[in-house]
């Protein structure tokens, strides 16, 4: 062995000018809890007592046919308040979550991959979401990405049961316990119809899927309706929050403040340290972090459930900013069909501080569903506002010009708007070196002006 080590060091010394990155091999205490004495676990099985260092973590040994792992259970009373929401609201909010049902399941023939984008009549027919059949899940893993070497060393589950919210957390004391943990998990999962995660569609679930295959559960099948709350969070807060990380969203929008939180990014290093020295104490922070993630996840689901069951303005306050109001409306429409966001859009119309970008986005939406009167109104608002602005845009000018040219054939109005747009563009770009994109833009504006002039000339001539 030491022969191989020497050879490796020689070769590396040759292949790298940097100091070889090997930490000085400190003599380590044999890590007993990391490498459990085979005799002990084999003989004593489930009745094995954990060493006292584990006491304050509140974990217990779980024994299955496949072996052992640790389980930590925390119960929250139903009236527990986490930030602005109470867990008892899940009962009421669950109904709204039906809108997450993938459309193709209960609307055969529909090719739309997104939920309801045609009419608001779909979600009524979907099966009711039972609050006790929703499973919240969050993994702590040894690495990033969904490669086969990324191991979930902790699996957090959250669910409603008999009037309390239960957080169950599994921990493997070493990678050989993974199989037992997965066996337990497989058993557990099938009781639920809905899986709720944060970024679970791209991370947690694919990682678990890998683990099932690698550990001999290749044929395990569970096909819940997967609600990944990252997606609605992004839809709504993409432009208003600096980050859509769960910890940031909960702080900014759910009124949740964590104390002494161990950031999830440190979890792998803490776990490796535990594997190396066998001291479980630092894992407490990881348990707490994951536990709060579970409760926050439930509160976020409550928030979206309220939004989807017309709770805006009653259960949930109206968003303050125009941008968030717009995004909420657009998201509601995407989820439940057009019409359901009208009250929000009306609020937006009456908001005199709404920035042009928001008005333009709403006008774009109106144009798509044929609500021309309001679209025109919105564009006009933007065009008026442009007169006062220092560096105005000209998007609304062009939209209006197109409307007048093609819809109402008011070429004169169209021309003056197009000319105004060209003037604004030239003013903005004067003295700048134009790249191909901008050149094409200015060229397009010129063509539009020319075309309108020709049309008018033809009519009058």
């Amino acid at each position, binding site marked *: 062995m030491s022969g191989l080590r020497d050879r490796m060091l020689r070769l590396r010394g040759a292949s790298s*000018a940097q100091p070889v990155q090997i930490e000085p091999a400190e003599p380590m205490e044999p890590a007993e809890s990391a490498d459990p004495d085979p005799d002990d676990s084999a003989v004593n099985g489930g009745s094995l007592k954990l060493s006292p260092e584990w006491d304050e973590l509140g974990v217990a040994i779980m024994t299955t046919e496949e072996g052992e792992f640790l389980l930590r259970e925390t119960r929250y009373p139903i009236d527990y308040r986490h930030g602005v929401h109470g867990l008892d609201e899940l009962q009421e909010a669950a109904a709204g979550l039906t809108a997450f049902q993938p459309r193709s399941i209960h609307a055969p023939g529909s090719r739309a991959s997104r939920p309801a984008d045609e009419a608001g009549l779909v979600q009524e027919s979907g099966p009711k979401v039972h609050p006790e059949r929703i499973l919240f899940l969050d993994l702590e893993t040894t690495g990033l990405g969904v490669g086969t*070497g990324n191991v979930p060393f902790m699996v957090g589950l959250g669910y409603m049961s008999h009037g309390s919210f239960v957080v169950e957390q599994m921990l493997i004391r070493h990678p050989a316990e993974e199989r037992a943990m997965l066996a337990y998990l497989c058993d557990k999962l099938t009781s639920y119809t809905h899986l709720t995660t944060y970024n679970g569609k791209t991370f947690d679930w694919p990682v678990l899927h890998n683990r099932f295959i690698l550990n001999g559960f290749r044929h395990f099948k569970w096909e819940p309706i997967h609600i990944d709350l990252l997606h609605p969070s992004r839809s709504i807060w993409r432009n208003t929050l600096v980050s859509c990380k769960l910890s940031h969203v909960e702080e900014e929008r759910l009124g949740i403040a964590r104390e002494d939180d161990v950031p999830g990014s440190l979890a792998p290093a803490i776990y490796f340290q535990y594997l190396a020295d066998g001291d479980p104490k630092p894992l407490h922070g990881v348990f707490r972090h994951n536990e709060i993630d579970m409760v926050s996840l439930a509160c976020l689901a409550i928030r979206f459930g309220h939004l989807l069951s017309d709770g805006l303005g009653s259960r949930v306050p109206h968003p303050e900013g125009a941008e968030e109001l717009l995004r909420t409306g657009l998201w509601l429409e995407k989820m439940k069909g057009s019409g359901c966001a009208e009250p929000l859009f009306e609020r937006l119309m009456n908001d005199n501080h709404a920035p042009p970008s928001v008005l333009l986005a709403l006008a774009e939406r109106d144009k798509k569903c044929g609500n021309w009167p309001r679209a025109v109104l919105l564009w006009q608002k933007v065009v008026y506002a442009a007169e006062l602005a220092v560096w105005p845009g000209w998007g609304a000018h062009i939209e209006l010009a197109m409307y007048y040219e093609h819809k109402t054939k008011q070429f004169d109005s169209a021309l003056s708007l197009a000319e105004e747009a060209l003037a604004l563009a030239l003013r903005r770009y004067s003295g700048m070196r134009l790249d191909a994109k901008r050149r094409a833009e200015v060229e397009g504006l010129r063509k539009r002006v020319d075309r309108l002039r020709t049309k008018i000339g033809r009519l009058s001539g």
Partner: protein
Amino acid sequence: MNRWTGKTSGLDEWLQILRQQPDIMENVTHWHTIPPRAARTAAMSKDIHPKLAEALASRGIRELFVHQAEAYEAVRSGKHVVTVTPTASGKTLCYNLPVLQSLLENDSGRALYLFPTKALAQDQVAELQEIAAAMDVDLKSHTYDGDTPPTVRQVIRNAGHIVVTNPDMLHSAILPHHTKWVKLFENIKYIVIDEVHSYRGVFGSHVANVIRRLKRICRFYGSNPQFICASATIDNPREHAERLIGEEVALIDNNGAPVGEKNFVCYNPPVVNKQLGIRRSSVLESQKLAAMLLRQGVQTIVFARSRVRVELLLTYLQELVKDELGTKTIRGYRGGYLPQLRREIERGLRSGEIRGVVSTNALELGIDIGQLQACVMNGYPGTIASTWQQSGRAGRRQGTSVTFLVASSNPLDQYMIQNPDFFFNRPPERALIHPDNLLILIDHVKCAAYELPFEAGDKFGEERLEDMLEFLVEEKVLHRVQNRWYWMEQSFPAHGISLRSAAQENFIIIDLTNGSRVLGEVDRFSAPTLIHEEAIYIHEGVQYQVEKLDHPEKKAYVREVDVDYYTDANMAVELKVLHVDKEHQYGELLRQYGEVTVNAKATIFKKIRLRSHENIGSGPIHLPEEELHTSGYWFSFSEEAAARKNTNDMQQALLGLANVLVHIAPLYLMCDPQDIRVVPQVKAVHTKLPTIYFYDRYPGGIGLSERLFDVHEELLRQAKTLIRNCTCLSGCPACVGPIEEVGLLGKSLALDLIEQTEVPS
């Protein structure tokens, strides 16, 4: 010949006329004619599915060449196979036939094809899709590489019958995510590896380990695929394939494809300065020959060794024939051209619209450009195997073809051109790999552990696996629980490991003349002599001066200059023998093979005036010493031999001999000349005797010096022939080196040294 246009009726007539032109023929050192050979065929196998037989018939294939039939039978009998076939012999059918047949018999089967480049993979998929369409069956073949859009990746993973990819993709995308490929790995029947000869050296050693990982994953999913390999002509196809895949293989090399008459003309540019041994430029001579061919309307491919030469030749040729053919009909082809442009050129060549192409060895591999009539090689391509590959681009199944090999003045070229027998009567080089190079092996043990935990009793390579695993445990990469080892680290190991880079860390050269752009790369071991501060670095004929060398960041900043000198750095090389593995005493020579460490430190550099070569200044170089631990081979002259010469003469004799040896060593190795290094020492530390050392320039060695140890005697014999037959008076760059370097007596001293050591027979 048409008196008015000067055009001949065909290549045969033109070759006749050429033979009567003394100004050309006096430079022709050898004209080798390989007579045409008729096809040898076998009936289409009886069990071939009617749809497949019909699809082949619709493309004019009603019977098989014997090698195709043999390959089919061997695969059907369950053997791993390597086929060795020259260009245009219907190689792809050797593997497509059994694979397609098997898929027609069982639609749930899967196959994985590996090609060294994306372009080859795309060609192959196009061909497979055509056959599938002709058979009218739902047989899906897809490329899976870096260009594959994410949206279709999932479809390919689940539904692709034949997945065509490259080793790099397998290494970094497929194997570490094997759980997404369950369908493929559960049902995989065949793994096709084409162009196996290109997997050699460091790259090949990596690929062999990727294949070890692939087999491990297949075992996990309960499959045991058969390998079908195809190789260009090399000396050791079976041994090479067996080392690469770690299985016994059946060799199929009974080529039954017909070939037309082939003329191979060795052309040595005339000497223009006898004293200095300078010949006329091979670029100009190649251009002359190519222009003659193009004017005759002969579709011609010109191979050049570097990108710059490709561009040079292209410009010349387009200029020369622009009135007759137009510049669009002559194109360049090299790495760095966009894929779309390459496809366009390939199509143009197949259709005949493009009459001439100037290419680097990028067109040497099996990219489909049809068969041309003539090939001009500007310089010896470096190996016999590549020479045949390149020459194979000209040569149809019927009709005459011609290849001109135009020698440059480098010693290897000069040797080949003067010893054509060596080329025509010798097997080509051996492909060498060393998959158990510890550094490479450990890298792949890491990747493999990421993919699946290791268990006691597992095997991976020749090194003791348990030792490697325990080493990785100490490195805190793996975690052991009883007799299993698990990957326990945050990183994704495949991302840090590139299959293709020889020295892992290259220095980047940044040109600050106009803004900043990356000019090129220099490997770590060359950096101290080429890009030390104040060095003149020459790139595409332009001089740059190094302003700053950021050693920790591995960046050199240069600026364009116009000066009348170049720089030459002195390296103090210290070579220590750690362990002798093999030893052989023969006459006055003792030769040994073993482990060595090489310490190299650049000391000073000299400024040398261009042309006059006078020393006009010097400066120190302050760079850390480089250490390389590798394998080496060396031979020492006896004390008696040492006593016969004074130190200075011995110095020059050794230097001259070393120069020759390092140039001809690639004759026996398929490697880049840079991969093997030589150090002559008048009084070596290890032996206290005059010694010449060779070492592999890759940590741990990749088998090059070991091979040289084995062919030592022949190597010396060839060196002697080369020196003796060189036309120069007292040493030139084509043999022992220029007299500035080896002195006026260098040539005779070197020759003398070899001759003295020969055992009189």
